[in-house]
């Protein structure tokens, strides 16, 4: 689920790694381990779901800025489709005990 959330955040505009963690904290995901976002970004990059632009940073090594590529956008669309299905079924379960109205 976190992968979908991070893909959605990246889809809103170019962003760097720790800024994503900041956004997640601001959204209320405060219990999220700092390492989770770092590990997730490595995986997104290895799975070629993001486009990376490197820019100089004040700390020395170049800073990576992420945007979604075509494959990333497809993955995001698939995530939302899965989410819509799941949430509708859970809602159905909650309201009607799993039976169609």
């Amino acid at each position, binding site marked *: 689920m976190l992968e979908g959330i991070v893909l959605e955040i990246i889809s809103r505009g170019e962003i760097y790694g720790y800024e994503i963690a900041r956004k997640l904290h601001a959204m209320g995901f405060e219990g999220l*381990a700092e390492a989770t976002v770092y590990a997730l*970004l490595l995986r997104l990059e290895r799975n070629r779901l993001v486009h990376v632009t490197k820019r100089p940073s004040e*700390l020395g*090594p170049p800073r990576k800025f992420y945007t979604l590529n075509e494959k990333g956008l497809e993955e995001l669309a698939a995530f939302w489709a899965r989410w819509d299905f799941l949430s509708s079924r859970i809602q159905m379960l909650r309201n009607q005990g799993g039976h169609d109205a």
Partner: protein
Amino acid sequence: MTFSREITDQIAKFAREQSRFYLEDAEMTYLEKLRRKSGQTRDKIKAKLAKFKSRSDTAVEAENDMILYMSDYMKDLIAEGYSEQEAFERAKQELAFRSDTAKSSDLRKRFEDYYRDLNPADYEAAGLFYAGFLFIGVAIGGIAGYLAGGGRTMFLSGGWVDTLIGTAAGGILGIGCGLIGNAVITLTRKR
């Protein structure tokens, strides 16, 4: 904001140590897909990649990413009131690799291999080597000490000390031979 030289070095050292575990973890998912396609075993691919990884651009990038990520996190912590050292310790704790998939699975595999290849007969043979050499050594040392000391007459008038020294030296020699026997068993088993 810039960090002290000492903390900057510590961040770089931590990033170099930890980033490879995260990278390996991220690559394993990719490798598993690759394995399905190519039919190669994961270990073979992993071994090949490990040689490449240690000097690859990807490893350096992962390391740099962690340096920046950690530095950003530390800046936030310092803004909250942490000292530089406290922020580093907290960031280190938060960013240390915890997954079972890379670091401990290697160790577990080595243990599994060790216990799988364990042969009780080897231990029995090693024990017999020790005991055998020890008895032979003690006997030879004792006889040598007894004879060098001057035989029965001298043994009874204080020459027993030479016998005792010979026995002790023979015992040590026996243990030494036992160790060599153990080494031979270990080397033979490795082949």
